[in-house]
């Protein structure tokens, strides 16, 4: 057992998987010599050498194309796209090529690759370096989408992603890199498509992802002090989506609240609300409610960014008000 930061968990996860399988290779901008701009890949180049840990030019299309071509010919590449916002310059590879080629070729090829990327806001980077874009990926058939909220899940879900035979978009949250958690020793391998119930409560169910998870947990603690018992589910994986766990919990409490960092329209919570409405409508005691960033680009100033992204206080007051009405 050790205290590990989310950032160190990334390096440990990559190390674990590169030791586990010699066909695992890693490429991206500044990932080797520099140890990553978020210092999440420190020591990998020294440990595994330049054949397996490859620094690339600023060429996001080439990075993802190389990962795709390598995956379809027997390697299991890990590609880093430094900021998730940069997916906008290489989305052809993600959405048109990697996601669709297994289907289009009637299964002749598969793509055991992981694309990891720094996602999300809170670091005052402004609108082009702060977005939560997991819903971009979720909208494309053929991609698995994962976003861990704590160091143990970083390792376990990353290992599951690398060992998965399909392309996995692995969204690390930039705002969580310095957060810490207890991580057990030894190999950790989790399972994609499994949500985790972090807290049970009979009054309401809060479903959250990545950096919104610790906020949801903190909000639930405050709500409990005010007499509202809210359970918290960490979705962890948007595709595959563990609807059974969520439907079970929501059916028990009768209330669903999603906490999403993404801008309002077409966030993952919208899909979840639709599933809940279709499949456990009769168990609901009130309307499902989404707590999201407004439908705006993220501003830079700390005062503004804090107003935009759901805060613990906003989660608490929104749920409290809804439960009282």
């Amino acid at each position, binding site marked *: 057992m050790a205290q590990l930061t989310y950032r160190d968990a990334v390096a440990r996860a990559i190390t674990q998987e590169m030791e586990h399988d010699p066909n695992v*290779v890693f490429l991206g901008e500044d990932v080797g010599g520099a140890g990553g701009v978020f210092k999440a890949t420190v020591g990998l180049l020294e440990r595994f050498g330049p*054949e397996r840990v*490859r620094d*690339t*030019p600023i*060429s996001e*299309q*080439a990075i*993802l*194309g*190389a*990962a*795709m*071509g*390598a*995956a*379809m*010919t*027997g*390697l299991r*590449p890990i590609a880093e796209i430094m900021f998730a916002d940069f997916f906008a310059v290489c989305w*052809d*590879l993600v959405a*048109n*090529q990697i996601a669709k*080629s*297994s*289907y*289009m*070729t*009637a*299964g*002749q*090829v*598969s*793509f*055991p690759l992981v694309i990891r990327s720094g996602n999300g806001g809170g670091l005052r980077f402004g609108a082009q370096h702060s977005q939560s874009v997991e819903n971009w990926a979720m909208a494309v*058939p*053929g991609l698995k989408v994962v976003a861990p909220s704590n160091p143990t899940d970083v390792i376990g879900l990353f290992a599951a992603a690398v060992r998965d*035979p*399909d392309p996995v978009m692995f969204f690390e949250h930039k705002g969580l890199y310095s957060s810490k958690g207890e991580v057990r020793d030894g190999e950790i391998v989790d399972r994609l*498509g499994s949500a985790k119930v972090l807290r049970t409560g009979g009054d309401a169910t809060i479903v959250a992802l990545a950096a919104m998870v610790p906020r949801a947990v903190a909000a639930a603690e405050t709500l409990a002090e005010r007499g509202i018992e809210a359970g918290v589910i960490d979705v962890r994986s948007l*595709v*595959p*989506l*563990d*609807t*059974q766990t969520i439907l079970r919990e929501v059916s028990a409490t009768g209330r669903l609240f999603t906490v999403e960092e993404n801008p309002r329209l077409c966030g993952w919570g919208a899909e979840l609300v639709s*599933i809940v409405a279709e499949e456990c409508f009769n168990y609901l005691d009130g309307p499902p409610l989404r707590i999201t960033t407004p439908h705006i680009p993220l501003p830079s100033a700390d005062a503004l960014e804090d107003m935009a992204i759901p805060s613990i206080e906003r989660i608490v007051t929104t749920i409290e008000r809804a439960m009282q009405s």
Partner: protein
Amino acid sequence: MTSTLDEPAAPAGPPGIDPATLHRPEGSVDVPIQIALYRQMVRMRKFETRAYDLFMENLVKGTSHLSLGQEAIAAAFGEAMEEGDYTFATYRGHAHTLARGTSMTGVMGELLGRSCGVLSGKGGSMHLTDVQRGVMGSYAIVGAHLTIALGAAWSAQYKGERRVAVAFFGDGTTNIGAFHESLNLAAVWKLPVVFVCENNMYMEYTPISAVTAVANPAADRASAYGLDSILVDGNDADAMYLTARDALDRARNGGGPSLIEARTYRSSGHSRADPGKYRPDAEVAAWKAYDPIVLYRSRLVARGVSEADLDAIEEMADGDVETATVNAKASPAPGADVLMRDVWADGGSSWRN
């Protein structure tokens, strides 16, 4: 058998191109290989011609992009590549797929959207793939597959395999970012990859010269990536074959990437919907007179190959195309069972529990 002095005067070269600028590869091509090249080209020509006829009958739906007039390039690489090498083609990829030995019925069936198609009707004309024969896919977004070829080459390099990845693309591709990203990374990593620009003079409907800063859209960019500038007569199957062999050898032996610009002409329009009326009549006529198959046939005859042998190749190709057409027409449409399959490697498409 060797070349003889009584061979007819070689055509001057591709119309409108200064012959002095063309790459003249060393060596000669043996007759058995020449016959194989001829067979490849004839099969492609007859296949594409039939595909066009089938569009007209509305049996091929959607779109399709033909390689009519450009056969020498795909044929040359088809013969020069080794088993285990990787082909990355574009949406104009019927010829490149056939060149690796993919069944004609499989390709024709795919065009017709039938069960016998190489992709069970799920990919269509623009996505032909036959991994067993090294055809790693045909890609319909300009530029993408150059980056993907990098990865296949990287994989071969990493595993110490002597495989080469070959990416074919049109002149239009030279103006998209992925082209430049690919050349740079291939050069920096010294990857075993050959980039083959089929310059047919038109990016879709617009003359490439009207939208490109240099005269030779690929060859003139090579020096920016430390690569040799190679401009070759893409309608001369021998020149193409020798150039292909050199580039493949170089890549296979650790010499890194090559960029080849093959000058050719698309004798049909860009796609099914395009009659190609924007092209000057004189240009079309000049290139028609420089047809790669007509040229090659007279060269083979001059080398002593009998007309009867060449006719037999044509007849066999006719028979193969007819068989493929009959098979494809007889094959049923794909059923609902394939619709929801193969999103994931386990064969399924489930996104939730």
